[in-house]
């Protein structure tokens, strides 16, 4: 007997939770735009539009360019080296170091966030580790959730209050947030691997940690490297603003120049940050491609 299309329609799988979530999200967005913080009357007021006009026509144009003494390109070329070039290098340096530290911490955490990496594989191990392993796994997953829930800027703000070196505050803030993300992603990678090689190592007498590192490490590495480079791109992006908290990098000079009212310099530094992010994205893409061969 064939079903009518109404019957088929009624019988189709429906994700009620997804529908309710979608409806709630739409209502929330509507509320935010109509009754929320947006004040369009003020945004398009005469005063704001005059501000915008002055900003675009006067403040972001270097005085030398306004007077016709030089061109935009020549003006920018003069300023890309020296102090600004060093700030760019320090911004990149903080991102590289933070991503590497986050990957190392994430790899360590993943042994516990994964439900399989250090799990008992033989009856002897099962009796010994079952309860302890579950508790440590839950603690590690909770720690990762907490680490990634904290915005990097907020962590850098708090660490910068008591660490003597603001560069460490920026690097650690980036590392902590990204270690929380990588700890989870690396752990999920380990869980999704074929578990038979690790079982074979354990059956041959290898301790659990040796079996996890020796049998699963090489298989997990390609995926881990992909995640590392994706997070590295994010670190570069975030690193451009953490200088606002005292770490001498692009963000630091952006805040300084803004305080001095030199918006032409601000715009140049923002553009340098944007170029760094694009270059890091391209480099990361090229390296991932090269690794794949």
């Amino acid at each position, binding site marked *: 007997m064939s079903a009518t299309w109404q019957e088929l329609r009624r019988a189709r799988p429906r*994700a*009620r*939770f*997804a529908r309710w*979530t*979608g409806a709630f*999200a739409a209502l*929330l*967005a509507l*509320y*935010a*735009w109509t009754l*929320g*913080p*947006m*004040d*369009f009357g*003020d*945004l398009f007021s005469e*005063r704001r539009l005059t*501000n*915008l006009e002055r*900003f675009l026509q006067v*403040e972001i144009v270097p005085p030398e360019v306004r007077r016709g003494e030089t061109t935009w390109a020549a003006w920018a070329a003069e300023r890309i080296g020296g102090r600004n070039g060093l700030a760019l*290098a*320090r911004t990149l*340096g*903080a991102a*590289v*170091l933070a*991503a*590497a530290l986050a*990957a190392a911490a994430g790899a360590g955490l993943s042994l516990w966030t994964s439900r399989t990496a250090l799990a008992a594989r033989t009856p002897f191990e099962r009796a010994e580790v079952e309860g302890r392993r579950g508790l440590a796994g839950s603690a590690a997953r909770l720690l990762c*959730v*907490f680490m990634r*829930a*904290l*915005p990097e*800027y*907020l962590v850098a*703000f708090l660490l910068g*209050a*008591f*660490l*003597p070196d603001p560069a460490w505050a920026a*690097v650690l803030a980036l590392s902590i947030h990204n270690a929380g993300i990588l700890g989870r992603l690396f752990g999920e990678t380990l869980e999704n691997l074929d578990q038979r090689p690790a079982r074979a190592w354990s059956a041959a007498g290898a301790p659990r940690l040796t079996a996890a590192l020796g049998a699963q490490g090489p298989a997990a590495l390609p995926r881990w*490297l992909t995640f*590392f480079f994706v997070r590295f791109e994010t670190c570069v*992006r975030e690193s*451009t603003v953490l200088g*606002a908290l005292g770490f001498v990098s692009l963000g630091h000079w952006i*805040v300084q120049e*803004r305080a001095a009212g030199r*918006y032409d310099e601000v*715009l140049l530094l923002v553009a340098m*940050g*944007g170029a760094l992010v*694009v270059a890091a*994205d391209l480099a990361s893409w090229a390296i991932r491609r090269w*690794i794949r061969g």
Partner: protein
Amino acid sequence: MSAPQAPPRLGRRGRTLLGIAAAALLAAILLGLGPTGLVPRGAGLELMRELGGAALDPALDYEITPPPGAEPFLARVASNLWSTVLYAAAAMALALLLGALLGLAAADVTWERHGGVAPPLARGVQWAVRVWIALLRSVHELLWAILFLAALGLNPAAGVFAIAIPFAGTIAKVFSELLDEAPRDAGRALVALGAGAGPALLVGVVPRALPDLASYAFYRFECALRSAAVLGFFGAPTIGQSVALSFENAQFHEMWSYVYSLVGLVIVVEALGARLRRSMS
């Protein structure tokens, strides 16, 4: 006949790992980082102790008597969180709209015609959109906020636009990749039956990618909450502003209450996102 070459001692992945370690070491040297920079001393050590003690005992009420008529402390925390949610929701609504349109324009599947080849003009438009997306993503939301603050002054809409612009770029990039990875069999079947390319895309391909698109949009909302909170450090009335103010006033117990409430909110949104993924899979 040439002699067989010995395989390299270190493969590409091994060399990449070594490269990362070397780059990290160089970065530490460039930044002048040493172990002494990690050890708080004097006033820093005292502050760390105070912050650490307060972290274990977050406030449930104001630390000093508030002015008459002030709302209860927990109501203030809730209203700060609500304000953060509204900023994030307004920004995400705009970013999703822009990101979805740009993502469609940047996806290969949108432009492919019979035989899987896009016309040259379409390829040109697609690459122009991809460059535009890269530019949108390249500037951090706080830098947009600084520029808007300078151009327009303090206005909530400027904060919302500051988050929405880079988020639209990121959403567009990921949406285009998800659309290209979605199965195309239903879309091709519709074209074979005589449907136009547009309807075949919207009815045959987009619904197949919808669970992943919705899941990613939810993740971005979580990121938008964090960004909206941080905008508070630049003057927006979100929870970050209360964190900064209570820190400046040395009301560390209150500060941790704000921090924990933000963490709690992000964790709830993450849990909802995980449930959404499960319900759509």
